[in-house]
């Protein structure tokens, strides 16, 4: 046991001095989310500010109809209405971005409305700038309400006449549950991706790297058996995977707390979710998963002749391993007696379940046992590969 820790201690020291690995395993996961979230928030804010203050140019062709509707709309200072004589020039103006939007009333618009029919008009829009039309729709909605209310008052009816049901909806689910169902998938996806990435570099460095540097022979002629060497190195691979995942989560929660509104209901629910128990349970699930990941990476790294060769095989594998984590984004897929046996998927769904505050210990136990079995198989396969003369001295 002592020898295992001697090897692990040395490998920790070695890796902690490798700036490249530290940046990828700790710094990037830590700052990735604050930077991304800050960037998205800033972009969104500046975009909405720009849109809200920008004056929309709307061209119109009256087609001999009354200008009443246009005059009502003109009172909104954020719109500029420009009259056109024909539809072709109106459409061209929208096409060349001279106008944001164009509207052309039908020749029977006024009579249709006064007869209680639908008033028709065509809109000229640019699909690429759909935000412009979405903004204008609000103005159209006001016009529609006005017409409906006028028609109702002609009939001596109030607006409630066309809203015959009044429903009071009482949502019994807690915000935590709703968040877990719809946004809970992102959390396991994040720690899964960083778990794999965090473990990958040490896995390559400690096996393929050691072969390439010519240090493996020295180690193999020291009085430690191969299982001890493997376990000593595996501890480090697993630990760095876990550290990386943990740091990514810390970065994510720090950015949510620092950049979000602490009085927001969602924020309060998120904070309520993040209990110490949740972290403990997550950690218990992540340890065998990290061993399983390490067990997939190590035999490949042992087989590879060089750091580069190992990296070229493991990088695409990252996608294959982490892809099942996407299942977390699919609403309705839950942890059951089938999904609990599928590695990676079971961790994602367990996390969602834990986040929602509902614990099914039988399913969690199946998940944990499945992962333990896989971790044991992974260690066995790694050991076989590490024991092969043809691989280790390749």
């Amino acid at each position: 046991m002592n020898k295992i820790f001697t090897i692990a201690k040395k490998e920790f020291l070695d890796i902690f001095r490798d700036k490249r690995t530290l940046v990828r395993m700790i710094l990037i996961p830590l700052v990735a989310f604050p930077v991304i979230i800050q960037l998205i928030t800033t972009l969104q804010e500046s975009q909405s500010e720009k849109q809200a203050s920008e004056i929309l140019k709307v061209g119109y062709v009256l087609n001999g109809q009354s200008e009443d509707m246009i005059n009502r709309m003109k009172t909104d200072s954020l719109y500029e209405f420009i009259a056109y004589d024909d539809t072709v020039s109106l459409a061209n103006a929208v096409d060349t971005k001279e106008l944001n939007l164009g509207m052309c009333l039908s020749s029977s618009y006024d009579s249709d409305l006064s007869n209680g029919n639908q008033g028709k008009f065509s809109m000229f829009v640019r699909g690429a700038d759909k935000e412009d039309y979405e903004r204008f729709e609000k103005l159209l909605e006001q016009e529609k309400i006005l017409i409906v209310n006028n028609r109702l008052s002609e009939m001596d009816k109030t607006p409630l006449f066309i809203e015959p049901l009044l429903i009071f909806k009482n949502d019994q689910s807690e915000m935590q549950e709703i968040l877990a169902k719809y946004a809970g998938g992102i959390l396991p996806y994040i720690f899964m991706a960083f778990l794999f990435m965090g473990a990958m570099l040490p896995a390559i460095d400690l096996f393929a790297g050691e072969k390439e540097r010519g240090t493996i022979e020295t180690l193999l002629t020291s009085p430690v058996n191969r299982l001890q060497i493997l376990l000593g190195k595996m501890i480090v691979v697993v630990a760095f995977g876990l550290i990386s995942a943990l740091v990514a989560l810390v970065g994510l929660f720090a950015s949510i707390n620092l950049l979000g509104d602490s009085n927001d209901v969602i924020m309060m629910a998120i904070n309520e979710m993040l209990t110490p128990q949740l972290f403990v349970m997550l950690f218990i699930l992540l340890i065998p998963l990290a061993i399983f990941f390490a067990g997939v990476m190590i035999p490949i790294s042992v087989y590879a002749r060089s750091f580069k060769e190992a990296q070229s095989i493991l990088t695409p594998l990252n996608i294959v391993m982490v892809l099942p984590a996407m299942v977390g984004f699919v609403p309705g897929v839950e942890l059951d007696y089938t999904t609990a046996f599928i590695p990676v998927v079971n961790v994602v769904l367990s996390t969602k379940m834990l986040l929602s505050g509902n614990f099914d210990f039988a399913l969690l136990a199946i998940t944990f046992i499945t992962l333990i079995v896989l971790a044991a198989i992974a260690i066995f396969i790694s050991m076989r590969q590490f024991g092969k003369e043809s691989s280790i001295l390749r």
Partner: protein
Amino acid sequence: MIKVNDLYKEYKLSKKQQKELGTNTTVAVPVNKINFECKPGRVFSLLGPNGAGKTTTLRMISTMLVPTSGNVEVCGLDTVKNANDVRRKIGFLTGSTGLYERLTANEFLKYFADLNDVSKADFEQRKNKYYDLLDMHDFANKKLGELSTGMKQKVNISRTMIHNPDVVVFDEPTSGLDVITAENIIKLIQDCRTEGKTVIFSSHIMTEVDLLCDDLAIIAKGNLLFNGTMDEFRANQVAPTLTGEFIRVVNESKN
């Protein structure tokens, strides 16, 4: 003491390897039932052309490879059955042995001392001995990646000796090294002999063999061509130089 008894090693050739070697045989035999003995206080040289099986033999002696048949005894211990005990008694050095470049010389030596269960007192005493002997104090706390090739080889020599092994195995230890660094290795081998250690080394450089060797074996294509003392080799010498005689013995085996 090292005893090599009917040592045989074979490994399967992949289709790719068969193609590369231009052969239909599915098995390669780098070492073919060889026997020799290395005695304490003497330097044993293992000679042979490239691909003769020298490295494979030395790797089996130092427990890195397992023989297909036959066996090796190091200080009376079987290298397969008592691999860990054998490793405690062996120091292994090659010219291409790498170092952990992010560790300092001190950390590097401590790591291997710990793996070899060297006590703290013994570690300090041996470390200081080699630091003095090889003039290493100035770079003891520098990261190994920052050191010159010569300095690195000094660290490697200290690592080889830090657990005071009874048997020292050198696989082409001066290959690719400059004259001054190679001289350190030669000196180490001579010191080991003086201290009564068993030394086995493989080399291509006949001047080194001439200078250091007490006993020697020549192998080619895995077969033992000569096994005896240096005096016996010289006594039977036909060619005018040692190098010439070595080439003659190897060529004769091809006929």
